[in-house]
């Protein structure tokens, strides 16, 4: 994991001092509300329906146990004792007092954390695969590149006032795309060219929100050292030509569409010609230096614990289920990747208490070299667990509720905070997730259904990524009442697609039944090896429509 040096520490200390000064001036009335707004947003502080929220940056989802403990302490001392995991691998506090925020930021800085650029019209936290570095299908570990991008984008003087927010994601796996890069402003797919050289395929202009789009490719192969100069060229074209007259048309996807991907690419290439050989071009040494931070932990030479696990599975059916669903193959023999499911029916999805955070920190220390990761699905990953200790870990997880083996099933819902917390919401989203979780509480049935992504957003802003859910749910407002529109067939994987709207929306109480009917159609029509998305793609939306609106 990345470790700060004296430069990082100094810059962050200056940032905290700056925000303290800005907050003091705001509280003293020297800064107008609209002047303070972007400053506090770029320090993670935004105000929602009920209270200010502080979005804390977790670069590409990685946390050390001491950082998790500090988060726990902060939620206790400054907040109501719980935090929320976001779909961008960040952590959010829901009720901090504005005047406390500089102190919170100072406490975070002591453990090399911050809330920089987690909000506002700037370059946001760069995200990647939560299994980065521990799976064997990676072109290369994406995290060094994420950290390089992260540092380059931190307080970038030219791009602090973009037309809109700007999100970059990197994916390194050839098989899957857990980082959903094609629905980001910039999506970077790591690739190797014919000569075996490392580089990136560059997607620009993907996004969700009102105008969902899959990002077109503007460059098939960007050599590794050119990463930053090329990003800078894209950002400069966007900063200069992106629309600023209408915030709904201000994302880069609208510019790419207006210029066409070819036209946009041409502008970027032209800009890049001027800067590609500037000192911002990465050096081999800088890349290797960064890679040095992301070396493998102190793995032991182990064999796979195949026999032991087989026996434990045989003896404990629940362990067997958990192993099949929440444990993933590790590239190192004898190790495994474990996903803790933080979502339990009856608690708001994705909220964790201070106590749970401390439990996660303890588990990370005990089982996974003191590190944990936050996923886009708002779960927590222990990436380096010894196979011969999986049973012990599973037993430890049971009493604290992190072992629900529902990963990637219908009840592993992605859900935005919605009307319970968010000022922009048209409708609540958490109760919908809960009612569906309750309706489908039979695990065997869930496993039989296979992978189904159910994504719920409380409004068009699509924080719950409903467009790319196999089943997407969007809260809408109909004459002051909360309704829910369903879309089918979205995907954020390599075969990314935007879901199609099923038809008229439904009342909240009907939602579990409607979802059950959709599932019914799938079960009836599927062939042996088909998952929900395959069946949908084969038979189309019509049979689902007929059943639901019959």
């Amino acid at each position, binding site marked *: 994991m990345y470790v700060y040096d004296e430069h990082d520490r100094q810059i962050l200390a200056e940032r905290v001092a700056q925000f303290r000064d800005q907050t003091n001036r705001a509280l003293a009335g020297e*800064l107008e509300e609209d002047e303070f707004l972007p*400053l506090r947003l770029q320090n993670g502080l935004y105000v929602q329906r009920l209270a200010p929220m502080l979005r804390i940056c977790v670069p590409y989802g990685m946390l050390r146990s001491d950082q998790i403990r500090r988060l726990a302490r902060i939620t206790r001392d400054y907040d109501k004792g719980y935090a929320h995991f976001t779909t961008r691998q960040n952590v959010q506090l829901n009720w901090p007092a504005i005047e406390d925020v500089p102190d919170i930021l100072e406490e975070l800085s002591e453990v090399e954390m911050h809330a920089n650029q987690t909000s506002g*019209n700037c370059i946001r936290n760069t995200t990647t695969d939560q299994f980065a570095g521990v799976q064997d299908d990676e072109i290369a570990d994406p995290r060094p590149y994420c950290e390089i991008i992260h540092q380059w984008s931190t307080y970038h*003087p*030219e791009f602090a006032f973009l037309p809109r927010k700007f999100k970059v994601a990197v994916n390194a796996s050839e098989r899957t795309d857990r980082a959903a890069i094609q629905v980001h402003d910039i999506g970077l797919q790591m690739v190797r060219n014919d000569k075996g050289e490392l580089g990136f395929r560059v997607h620009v202009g993907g996004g969700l929100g009102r105008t969902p789009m899959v990002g077109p490719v503007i460059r098939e192969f960007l050599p590794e050292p050119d990463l*930053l100069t090329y990003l800078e060229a894209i950002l400069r074209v966007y*900063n*200069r030509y992106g629309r600023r007259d209408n915030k709904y048309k201000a994302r880069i996807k609208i510019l790419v569409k207006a210029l066409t991907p070819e036209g946009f690419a041409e502008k970027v290439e032209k800009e890049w010609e001027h800067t590609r050989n500037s000192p911002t071009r990465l050096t081999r040494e*800088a890349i290797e230096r960064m890679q040095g931070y992301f070396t493998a932990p102190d793995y032991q030479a182990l064999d796979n614990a195949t026999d032991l696990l087989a026996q434990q599975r045989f003896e404990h059916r629940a362990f067997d289920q958990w192993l099949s669903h929440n444990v993933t193959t590790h590239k190192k023999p004898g190790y495994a990747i474990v996903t803790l499911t933080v979502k339990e029916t009856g608690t708001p999805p994705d909220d964790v208490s201070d106590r749970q955070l401390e439990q996660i920190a303890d588990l990370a220390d005990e089982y996974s070299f003191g590190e944990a990761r936050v996923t886009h699905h708002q779960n927590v990953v222990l990436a380096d667990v010894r196979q011969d200790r999986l049973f012990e870990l599973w037993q430890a997880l049971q009493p604290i509720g992190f072992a629900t083996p529902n990963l990637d099933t219908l009840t592993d819902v992605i859900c935005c905070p919605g009307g319970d917390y968010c000022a922009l919401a048209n409708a609540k989203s958490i109760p919908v997730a809960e009612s569906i979780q309750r309706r489908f509480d039979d695990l065997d049935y869930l496993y039989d259904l296979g992978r189904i992504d159910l994504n719920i957003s409380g409004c068009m802003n699509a924080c719950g990524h409903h467009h790319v859910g196999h089943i997407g749910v969007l809260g809408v407002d109909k004459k002051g009442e909360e309704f829910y529109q369903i879309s089918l067939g979205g995907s954020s994987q390599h075969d990314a697609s935007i879901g199609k709207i099923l038809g008229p929306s439904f009342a909240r109480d009907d939602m579990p039944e409607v979802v059950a009917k959709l599932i019914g159609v799938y079960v009836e029509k599927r062939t042996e090896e088909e998952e929900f998305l395959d069946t949908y793609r084969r038979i189309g939306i019509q049979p689902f429509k007929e059943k639901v609106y019959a």
Partner: protein
Amino acid sequence: MPEIITQDGTIKQDDWVLVSRPEEGESLQLPEKQPALIPMDIWLADPHAIVHKPGLGIWLESHDEPERLEGMVNDLPLIAVNFPKFSDGRGYSIGRLLRERLGYRNELRAVGDVLLDQLQFMKRCGFDSYALRPDKDINKAARCLNFFSQSYQAATDTDIPLFRRRAG
């Protein structure tokens, strides 16, 4: 006389007058005794046509294309870039292009909605003087120009990004 901040944080008296774009059918109104900044495109229409003894410079709107000044920038003693709203970030790109691409060496000034907390970004993007919005406390400018003692990326102020300094 209005006060201007320079990039080292000093306050100087300055009498350049920003001449706004004339309305339809009206002509450009230059001040009699003071140096004047005129809209870029009016100057570009014929760079030798307007002679103004006290001094002549130009100003750019945030949507103007600085590339149009290629080869001529250093004929001008002062170029100003207007920030119509502080949240309009186009001026930062214009600053860098004028300095780094077009090689502009004379004074580059930020005008318009210029507030304290953006000064260091402006400095990093090549601006070396700032006409602070009059309601802002000019005595706080020097501090705001120097919140950060170093930076991660290259810009106009330094072409050496931190990753290269770390190597050294």
